[in-house]
């Protein structure tokens, strides 16, 4: 009955196994994380001092654009899909994903897509240079020729995401082990179920936006060109109708990860499970009605501005409930601070800092001063890097023993954590001040009054960036030289189903479903 995987390259190319596909997603996203990170290093190197030193402003714009696109679509999103692939079947007691062949395809679309996107760096006119938000008409009438490749790759990653999400929904709805009701699912599964619905709802909207761009560029339409009767602001409405849910697509699975890790290392059940589920659902709902808070300065009517301000502020309520639940879970627990727990606590701490600056940004009149400044850059890196990437690091350390059957080096893990933590804060905390002092985002050069902040930021970025190489080294070393864990459970406080299968998890698991009481 038991049979292993095929050998060689065809194993990976033709695989329909959720663990193989999860592994490929994770390695792919790590590669993209390093690529997007190296773009960030170029940005920070140029901004180390006032004056133009290293790159031309035109190339600088390509770097900010590609950094954003690669990190959002190439690193963070595929990393969470990789976790979903690996862990959802294991956590709900399913033998595999519901649609394994489609699963293979959703992954294999990605590498060529990003190859196309990255290759545009070598085209005449350069890579996309209009920011990851690609506002028209800079991204249409005034765009470099590579914009067409960019549109094609956005379409392709959209298809990949939609297929991946459908697969996740189908798996969760149909393949839960007997006895696992919805309200017994691990929170990571819950957050992914909600995220998958968000993805299915908004990726087509993004596809619509880039299709309109394509039409404007090549087929003579004027969706976004005022000269032809179109509306450049329409672009922003369509983009952010996708873009705001998108940030929750990134953060909700991260919430799921820490909701798994904190109870395990506190040796105490998650506090307020039901309210966590409802809070996640309310955040998802609210994410659809707040998009114009990214557009407070475009000249919305007063009534619109007030509506978006109030709706945005409301998001603080369910988000705060989640933070309180995590803290109450730790309260009176029996806590140990292994690397996954360190990253999870730091995620809660730093994400909350990002939440505070988010609340400040929600206040529309104050946003007239914050908008498009480095304050915004600081805010969203606190949510994206500390909120999502710290959670991803936590997840990798947490599940690595299950994936490989070997234990990572704890001292190296902790070192990675502390260097990341210090580097991250040194990078992004000063950016709050730079923004408040008046530094606009996306500029390659600046007045001396911003110099100190930028130098701190750049030093922090180099520290944070290099700490990721330690992370990579630790993972590779675990695979090659790690100490076998010899236990199914690995972590003392673990309770979910993935800890009932052997470590490393065999190629096929739960071929007979477990009974959930």
């Amino acid at each position, binding site marked *: 009955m038991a049979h292993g995987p095929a050998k060689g390259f065809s194993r990976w190319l033709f695989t329909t196994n959720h663990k193989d596909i999860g592994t490929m997603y994770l390695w792919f996203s790590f590669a993209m994380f390093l690529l997007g990170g190296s773009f960030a290093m170029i940005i920070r190197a140029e901004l180390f001092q006032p004056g133009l030193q290293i790159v031309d402003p035109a190339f600088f714009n390509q770097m900010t654009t590609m950094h954003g696109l690669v990190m959002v679509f190439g690193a963070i999103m595929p990393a969470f899909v990789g976790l979903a692939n690996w862990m959802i079947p294991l956590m709900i007691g399913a033998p595999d994903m519901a649609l394994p062949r489609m699963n293979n395809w959703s992954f294999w679309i990605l590498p060529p897509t990003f190859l196309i996107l990255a290759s545009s760096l070598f085209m005449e006119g350069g890579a996309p240079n209009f920011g990851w938000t690609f506002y028209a008409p800079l991204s249409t009438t005034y765009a470099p020729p590579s914009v067409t490749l960019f549109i094609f790759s956005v379409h392709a990653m959209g298809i990949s995401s939609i297929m991946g999400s459908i697969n996740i929904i189908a798996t969760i709805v149909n393949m839960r082990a007997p006895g696992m009701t919805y309200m017994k699912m691990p929170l990571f599964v819950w957050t992914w179920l909600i995220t998958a619905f968000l993805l299915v709802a908004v990726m087509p909207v993004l596809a619509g936006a880039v299709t309109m761009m394509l039409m404007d560029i090549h087929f003579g339409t004027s969706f976004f060109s005022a000269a032809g009767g179109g509306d450049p602001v329409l672009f922003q409405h369509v983009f952010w109708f996708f873009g705001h849910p998108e940030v929750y697509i990134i953060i909700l699975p991260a919430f799921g990860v820490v909701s798994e890790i904190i109870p395990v290392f506190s040796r105490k059940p998650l506090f307020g499970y039901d309210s966590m589920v409802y809070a996640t659902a309310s955040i998802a709902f609210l994410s659809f009605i707040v998009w114009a808070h990214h557009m407070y300065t475009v*000249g919305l009517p007063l009534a619109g501005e007030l509506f978006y301000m109030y709706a945005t502020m409301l998001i603080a309520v369910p988000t705060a409930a989640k933070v*309180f639940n995590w803290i109450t879970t730790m309260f*009176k627990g029996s806590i140990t601070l292994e690397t996954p727990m360190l990253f999870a606590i730091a995620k809660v701490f730093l994400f909350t800092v990002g939440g505070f600056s988010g609340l400040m940004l929600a*206040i529309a009149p*104050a946003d007239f001063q914050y*908008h498009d400044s480095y304050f915004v850059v600081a805010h969203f890196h606190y949510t994206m890097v500390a909120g999502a990437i710290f959670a991803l690091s936590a997840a990798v350390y947490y599940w690595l023993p299950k994936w490989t059957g070997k234990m990572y080096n704890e001292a190296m893990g902790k070192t990675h954590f502390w260097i990341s933590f210090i580097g991250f804060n040194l990078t992004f905390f000063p950016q709050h001040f730079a923004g*408040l002092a008046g530094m606009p985002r996306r500029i390659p050069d600046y007045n001396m009054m911003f110099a*100190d902040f930028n130098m*701190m930021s750049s030093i922090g970025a180099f520290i944070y960036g290099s700490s990721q190489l330690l992370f990579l080294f630790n993972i590779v070393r675990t695979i090659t030289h790690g100490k076998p864990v010899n236990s199914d459970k690995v972590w003392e406080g673990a309770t979910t189903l993935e800890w009932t299968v052997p470590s490393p998890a065999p190629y096929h698991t739960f071929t007979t479903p477990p009974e959930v009481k």
Partner: protein
Amino acid sequence: MQQQAKRLLKLALNPVLVLLSLMSSGVWAATAEKAEHWRGNMTPGVTEVGHKIYDLHMLVFWICVVVGIIVFGLMFYSVFAYRKERHSEPATFHENTKLEIAWTVVPFLLLIIMAVPATKVLIEVYDTDDAAQDILITGYQWKWKYEYINPNGDNVTFFSNLRTPESEIGNEEEKGSNYLLEVDEPVVLPVNSKTRFLVTANDVLHAWWVPELAVKRDAIPGFVNEAWTKPTETGVYRGQCAELCGRNHGFMPIVVNVVEQEEYDQWLAGKLAEAAELKELMAKEFTMDELVARGKKVYERNCLACHGANGEGGVGKAIAGSPLATGSTKGHLDVIVNGVPGTAMQAFGGQLNEVDLAAVTTYQRNAFGNNMGDMLQPVDVYKFKKGQ
């Protein structure tokens, strides 16, 4: 003994405390040291609205700080007090409806405390009525155009370009204190008088932001957005474009010169006289020397950044010995007036007046070793534009 020392060390290394104290001490030390040209907080600026926005910002900030101290305090207390070595038997509780309701209601109430003043200030920001003067601001790649709207006569119009020399940007010369925040011609506003800005753009999106005036408005082609300010102190206030607008997004600053009413009136009268003079110049027959002298100035303001001080080229093509500048006058003028679509060469037809267009074209044809000997008069440019 050893264990105690270890525990102490652990406590001392409490990362967050270390980090926070490092950061705050660093930040405050730096603030004290360089307070005169270094700030790390939002400016209240020089308008009443700006002060209200600042107060709102600080209100929300302090609420966040207080909530943060409580929440993070509880969090780190839990992490330290309930470590396994101290607390090996975890509690088992996992829900409490009353608690859940409390931490839903309390944040909601805090939000209302913030929303009430925010709404008031927002309504004020949106009240653009009863302005004493209107200025139409148009964003261009990569400069600002200001047009003082005069209902009883001609508008006063001018462009405002970055004045920081390339040599400072390229680190060949020491940077001045207003590095990248200086322009050749600032906007002038009267103090204690309400000015309404009508903001639009000519090509891509831009955003007009001057922190001290508490104004940020997107400049969008095809739309006219409104904003207003009423500065209460004279002085020079600097800002930048805040919306990514292409290569030189970081190089299109804003300088606002707020002056006494009388000084403003004088300035405006002077600008009107200049405009009247220009009208006369339109009909004048210039000599070659006059054109070249004027053209040189126009070149330095508008062309030099891309085409080089000696016409050697750079971002733009070389002008020295170029087939265009040594070909027909009409073809040469056509490129300057209409630009080259899809390249960085802009259409200057709408940015420069006929006198300057004639002068700069003539200059390019008779400088940098180009010895065409021909010239263009303003009237020729006028006819060319008319004929299009």
